């Protein structure tokens, strides 16, 4: 039974207020909003992987393949077929979910290393399709001209998503919905079944869990979220490029989830914010960001595999003398 005490709750509310008012306090610095949008995008994919890896125990090394799948489905629908953003988003999410379910079913026959390797292989395959199917995806050069969502109008008010603050609120709203979904899934019978599969699959089966079905569901859900993240990304940047969805990006997503704290609700948010904003905060050149993160990942595996959220939680338990289970 996980209980949220007063102080963390207060911090959460403060953070939320901060996020909701960002365009106000960051008024003269558009790059702050830009980075917050990127953090939102990264965190959505990270929530998907957190559900798979942190709660379901499925270490997928091909996550960005599904982000790319969703991204390109939406991009092609919006650019070539002139679909609107929302129908493209919905279709992309469903496509990624179906791909996740099918590919997951193939991957679940394997354990340990083999599972990781086969997910890596599928991630590579998906990337290869994006990179080489020139007719549809425009290949390595990328697919430009991906539009922002159409403006909302009523009466004389026009909200154009070409403007950063407006797109920021859109991204934030979707992100909050995604985190709410994560909460709903995790703190429920569904989440408890996933946790049992992660902790002891054989025991779960002996207690009546149809493991394959649940793994498929979480893989499909995680992949759908990756797809949503991809769509948001290509709409924001106005271009879809295969390089955003390659093996290294999949590894970066694993980094975000693990450093943030796998199996914790706030883990993806912490990891994503750190990943996007740390270089700015430390005024570092971009190359060193990943050097530090890579090193951080190694050090965390050695000394704090539960990630930052996990460390905070342990610290909190020490302070309050609470020895109960998470």
């Amino acid at each position, binding site marked *: 039974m996980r209980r949220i005490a007063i102080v963390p709750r207060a911090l959460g509310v403060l953070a939320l207020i901060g996020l909701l008012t960002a365009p106000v306090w960051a008024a003269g610095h558009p790059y702050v909003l830009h980075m917050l949008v990127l953090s939102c995008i990264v965190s959505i994919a990270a929530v998907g992987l957190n559900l798979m890896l942190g709660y379901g125990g499925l*270490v997928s*090394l091909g996550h960005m393949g599904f982000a790319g799948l969703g991204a390109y489905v939406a991009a092609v629908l919006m650019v070539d077929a002139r679909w609107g953003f929302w129908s493209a988003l919905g279709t992309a999410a469903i496509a990624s979910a179906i791909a996740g379910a099918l590919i997951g079913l*193939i991957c679940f*026959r*394997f*354990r*340990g*290393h*083999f599972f*990781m*390797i*086969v997910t*890596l*292989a*599928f991630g*590579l*395959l998906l990337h*290869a399709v994006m*990179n*080489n199917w020139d007719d549809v995806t425009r290949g390595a050069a990328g697919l430009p001209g991906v539009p922002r969502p159409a403006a909302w109008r009523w009466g004389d008010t026009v909200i154009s998503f070409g403007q950063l603050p407006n797109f920021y609120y859109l991204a934030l709203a979707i992100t909050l919905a995604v985190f709410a979904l994560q909460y709903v899934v995790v703190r429920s019978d569904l989440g408890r079944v996933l946790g049992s599969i992660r902790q002891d*699959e*054989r025991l779960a089966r002996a207690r009546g869990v149809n493991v394959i079905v649940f793994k498929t569901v979480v893989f499909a859900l995680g992949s759908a979220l990756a797809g949503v993240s991809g769509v948001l990304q290509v709409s924001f940047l106005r271009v879809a490029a295969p390089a955003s969805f390659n*093996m*290294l990006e999949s*590894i*970066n997503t*694993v*980094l975000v989830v*693990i450093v943030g704290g796998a199996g914790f609700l706030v883990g993806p948010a912490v990891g994503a914010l750190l990943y996007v904003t740390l270089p700015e905060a430390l005024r570092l*050149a971009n*190359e*060193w*960001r*990943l*050097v530090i*993160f*890579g*090193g*951080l*990942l*190694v050090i*965390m*595996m*050695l000394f704090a*595999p539960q990630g930052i959220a996990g460390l905070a939680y342990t610290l909190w338990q020490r302070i309050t003398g609470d020895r109960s289970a998470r």
Partner: protein
Amino acid sequence: MGEALLEQVINGLMMGSLYVLVALGMVLIYGVMHVVNFAHGVLFTLGGYVGVFCYQHLAPSYPLALLLSIASLAVLGLAIERLVFHPLDGNLRNQVIASLGLILFLENLIIAVWGATALQWKVASTEHLVSIGSLQFSAHHLGIIVITLALVAVLGVFLKYSRFGTAIRATSQSREAAIVVGIPVRRVQRSSFAIGCMLAGLGGGLVGPLFLVFPQMGDVPLVKGLAGILLGGMGSVPGAVVGGMLLGVTESVSTLFLPTDYRDSIAFMVMVLILLFRPQGLFGQRIRGED
């Protein structure tokens, strides 16, 4: 047609040799430590960088550059084993994630130190041409094949007939039994890891002059190495050799019928197909349940 085929076969053997070097290193480490070192690709890259650095800043001697590259990779390998893999022994997920962290750390360190643009490494053997029939190959091309095959032979003899080689084989079959019999398992693990890294470094040093030396040059060989050991059978040394060569030749020959864009995808397809239809590969035993 026959000539084009021969040309591609020899190309394939050369690329296959590089895959074999990566695959052999990975299979040695896997056999003894039961972990796939995903950072192997970036170690391959480092081999290239150390080599070109030595060649351009110390002495323009290619053999020396290769030697220094191998030596430094051995040292690095020992450090990584001692500091990262050994402490995480028993926890597969964390070892794999740590190796992913190593990829990011090392690859981006290379970019930060040497820059993101590719380096050229001009070495005499790439200019020197050798004729096979009416085809011409650079001595370097053929040298890679010869060196790799020689190394495979030496390694094979070492593993089969030497005392330490037998210790390595015993440890990879059963660590517990090896401990009981008195084999110095830690020394075996450290050495196997170091040898694996040396092989990767050699691969990087050999391929550097052929194409270019750039930070991502190990990413593709990592995947090819993985495909090679899957094809050959995880844990099987002869499998890694056969798998790597087979993959290299298949890829090169495929360029005769398929657009070259798809050449790399062959490795991915191989991985998926092997895992689906014959997960133990060509020579491996039934996959031990890694539950």
